[in-house]
């Protein structure tokens, strides 16, 4: 489980687990990944390097045979009469298709030699007609590998608001919990899924579809028609661009605070031998491997704080430069993560508070609570700030980033966490919950987020082991918990409640050395 991924991404980091300054191997791997940006097809020039690479990649895959080939990959999804391995109408729909797209992305990088390639997405909320690059039979006098003759839609047919309009997107982004947003777990006859057998993945339409799958996903397939309307739809090169937008909406939902289900029947499912690596060997990810795009090699976070220098003339519209006020706000956020102790460092523009942790470690049977005294007037600016926009406006991450970062925010830093038996443990963070126990769900308004640990707690590379620190964004929880009070409190009660990931397993413990709170002003 992750929290504050949106914060991490807004700062240009690739850390997906809310863990900072740690010695765990996963952090090293993430830092070296260098995820590539998936860009919108909107406004993309026909000769854009990304489009050209996709054109070349599709052509090469179509010419290939064996496991890594166009036909082989398409057969994974389905044939002319039925689905094969792909789940539809159950809760594996989103993660399975994420892994499926990743397999294409990696294959194209390998085949074309362009390691900067990332699949572009068709943002049909903005572009209601099929993208121009996919509807021309030829390109530069050669057959266009992105064209598919077996489509029913014409280049001038347009998707309506009832399928992809603002009302639909608003509804999707507001849906909760995950099994409503992302389609529910399968039920086969009277049997609700109760194990991790592979057959549950392909229990087609055994769950209840949410708006994302039943409306834009299904209807864009049907709108394009022809092969795209059938189980062998992955034969159409437009399929991947459509599904990239579905994937991106999942990511946007997470960024807006949508929490993926922690249910181990979901997170623990392995898509065994479902996909291929670029070398033709099986790629068998687990759902828990697929929750954050960056470790998979791609990202949707578009505008970096400092755009990288470019040595070649751009062929498309350059990324938008944030206004100076936004850049200044970024710098405040960066300062939060650049110092080991906020209380002594006191970054400019940030009100900081801290409290040592003197109680016992948090365990399954007894949560840990740390009260941090804060200035209620500073907290007031966070509690009563205007909420960030939701809906189709946030599909522009540039605007969402600027709106998000321009308002006051409140963070807690759990420093130097000493933890035990982490392998089966989700550590949940709550704010001011008087009735907290392991049974309080993550849909509770006091819930802030969760963290976990992977990798060893021992030394790394011969150096002394360091205890990791965790950052959590308290802003939304402060608004929910204190929003109805006339005066916010002068003390924030930050709580940690460990719960087991597998119900039959044990949960570990956690105890930070201190808790720091930072209130970042507008």
């Amino acid at each position, binding site marked *: 489980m992750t929290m504050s991924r949106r914060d991490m991404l807004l700062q240009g980091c690739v850390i997906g687990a809310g863990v900072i300054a740690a010695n765990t191997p996963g952090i090293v791997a993430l830092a070296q990944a260098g995820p590539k940006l998936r860009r919108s097809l909107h406004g993309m020039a026909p000769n854009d390097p990304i489009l050209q690479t996709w054109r070349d990649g599709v052509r090469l895959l179509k010419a290939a045979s064996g496991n890594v080939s166009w036909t082989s990959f398409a057969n994974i999804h389905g044939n002319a*009469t039925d689905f094969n391995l792909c789940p539809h109408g159950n809760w594996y729909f989103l993660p399975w298709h994420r892994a499926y797209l990743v397999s294409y992305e990696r294959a194209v990088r390998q085949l074309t030699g362009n390691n900067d390639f990332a699949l572009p997405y068709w943002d049909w909320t903005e572009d209601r007609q099929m993208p121009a690059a996919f509807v021309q039979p030829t390109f530069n006098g050669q057959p266009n590998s992105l064209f598919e003759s077996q489509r029913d839609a014409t280049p001038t047919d347009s998707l309506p608001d009832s*399928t992809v309009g603002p009302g639909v997107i608003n509804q999707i982004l507001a849906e909760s919990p995950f099994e409503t947003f992302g389609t529910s777990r399968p039920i086969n006859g009277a049997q609700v899924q109760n194990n991790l057998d592979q057959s549950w993945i392909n229990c087609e*339409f055994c769950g209840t579809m949410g708006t994302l799958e*039943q*409306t834009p996903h299904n209807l864009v*397939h049907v*709108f394009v028609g022809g092969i795209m309307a059938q189980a062998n739809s992955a034969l159409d090169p437009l399929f991947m661009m459509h599904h990239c937008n579905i994937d991106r909406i999942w990511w946007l939902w997470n960024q807006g605070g949508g929490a993926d289900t922690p249910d181990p029947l979901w997170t623990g499912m392995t898509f065994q031998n479902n996909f291929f690596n670029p070398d033709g060997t099986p790629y068998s990810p687990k759902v828990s491997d697929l929750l954050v795009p960056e470790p998979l090699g791609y990202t949707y976070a578009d505008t970096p704080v400092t755009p990288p220098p470019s040595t070649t003339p751009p062929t498309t519209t350059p990324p938008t430069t944030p206004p100076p006020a936004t850049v200044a706000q970024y710098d405040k956020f960066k300062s939060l993560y650049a110092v080991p102790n906020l209380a002594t460092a006191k970054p400019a523009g940030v009100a900081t508070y801290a409290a040592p942790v003197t109680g016992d470690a948090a365990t399954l049977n007894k949560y840990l609570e740390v009260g941090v005294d804060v200035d209620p007037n500073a907290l007031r600016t966070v509690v009563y700030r205007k909420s960030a926009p939701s809906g189709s406006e946030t599909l522009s991450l540039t605007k969402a980033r600027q709106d998000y970062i321009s308002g006051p925010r409140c963070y807690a830093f759990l420093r130097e966490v000493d933890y035990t038996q982490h392998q089966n443990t989700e550590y949940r963070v709550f704010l001011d919950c008087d009735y907290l126990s392991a049974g309080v769900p993550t849909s509770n308004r006091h819930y802030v987020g969760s963290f976990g640990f992977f990798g060893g707690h021992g030394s790394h590379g011969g150096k002394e082991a360091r205890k990791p620190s965790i950052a959590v964004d308290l802003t939304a929880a402060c608004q929910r918990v204190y929003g109805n009070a006339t005066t916010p409190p002068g003390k924030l009660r930050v709580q940690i409640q460990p719960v087991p990931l597998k119900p039959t397993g044990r949960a570990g413990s956690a105890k930070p050395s201190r808790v720091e709170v930072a209130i970042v002003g507008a």
Partner: protein
Amino acid sequence: MGACGSWTMRVGCALLLLAPIGAAAAEGDQLLATVNKPAVVTATPAPKTASESQPARQVVLSVTGYQPPQNGAIQGIVKAQKPDGSEQQIGTIGVFPDSAFKAESSRARTYNFPLPKEFEGAAVKLKVELVPLRGQAEGAQLEVGSAEIR
């Protein structure tokens, strides 16, 4: 299983005659939707357990049969009827793959929609209209199995 030997069938197989399942129909319900005539189904609140104290907020609609259009594409617009006779759209559904099927109730396609607050507490009449998404979309049929408020 249908005449074409698979529970999902290509467009172009013999047209199915979708016979509505009557067991879930309330009085006045019309469970078969065509382009010219919507389906009308009553969504009733599901029985609550002792631990469920929150008001129901979702409508779950099951579709037990579908015949794609002979040309074009179709979408299902779902509306809830208010006591004063006016309607409020609560969602849109699509059938993918766009192939004919006839499912038993246990393998119906189920869709869920948020239920606006003003509809909470009582049974709700739902209208499912088949509206062309592309082209004329003639010949499409959609059979509603049941609707429930959870």
